């Protein structure tokens, strides 16, 4: 499984973190603009999914796949949204995003008194721990696949 990049938005739609591990194409716009674009897209998509859904299920995660990549979305109960682009054969990204939330975001952002809610996350410790979780998940799935 290849993880391309990860966006984290807070409940107001502000991009609080962007991590990139494997992005081949150079982005054509700035990080903030891209963040707004992705956020607008997931909010609209989530709205459409709920309205058009033939089943009465309210889920906090969905994904879409193109012929080249898969975009996964997961939202925490407190409104923190995780958007991760991976390659096509990546199982259990929902679990991965949930574990990123509990093991990295809550531990090193929520519990960090110097991290102000609503601002971009500057903590190097957060970036380091996130990296570790991502690399651990990559090696896990490459062993089992």
């Amino acid at each position: 499984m290849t993880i391309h990049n990860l966006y984290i938005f807070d409940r107001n739609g502000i991009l609080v973190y962007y991590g990139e591990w494997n992005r081949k194409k150079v982005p054509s716009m700035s990080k903030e603009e891209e963040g707004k674009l992705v956020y607008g897209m997931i909010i609209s998509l989530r709205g459409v999914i709920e309205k058009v859904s033939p089943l009465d299920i309210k889920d906090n995660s969905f994904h879409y796949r193109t012929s080249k990549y898969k975009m996964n979305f997961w939202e925490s109960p407190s409104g923190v949204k995780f958007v991760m682009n991976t390659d096509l054969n990546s199982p259990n990204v929902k679990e991965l995003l949930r574990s990123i939330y509990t093991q990295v975001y809550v531990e090193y952002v929520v519990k960090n008194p110097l991290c102000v809610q609503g601002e971009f996350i500057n903590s190097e410790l957060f970036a380091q721990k996130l990296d570790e979780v991502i690399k651990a998940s990559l090696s896990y799935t490459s062993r089992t696949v």
Partner: protein
Amino acid sequence: MAVQPQPFSGAEELPLELLHGELVCSEVLLSKDKDINELLSKLEFIGFSTGYRLIERLLKESPRFKDELETIKFICKDFWTAIYKKQIDNLRTNHQGTYVLQDNSFKFLSRISATKQNLEHGPKFLAYTCGMVRGALANLGIASVVIAEVTTMPTCRFHITITRSV
């Protein structure tokens, strides 16, 4: 493969951690017009009162300490465990009234940084604990001065200098 999340695991020490974080941030980091030393000594005094009362509660059943070193060892083990759920990692002394307590992953600093980032904010999170140690020793009849230093987060050292003991 899915791990069920345990509700509220490890949440017993969370209120103290969060409260302390808020105390430091709102008092010290955000009030830029007041003198920072005044605010830090206020924080240290709050710690002093807390430590003073806490040691009374912790020593309900223990016998009197044989000597100063036993007292400091109690601080390193039981006192630290009661508050931070771990013990002091390293204790050094010159046997003449100076003790250095080293904690390799201090509770209040472990979520902030593991490198040199935010090093200047480190000491602010130690003022309360310095006060607690000083208060605990004071109630045991040992007057002391406690200062703390941080070289690399999250490791920190507390220097206790005994001024007079009864």
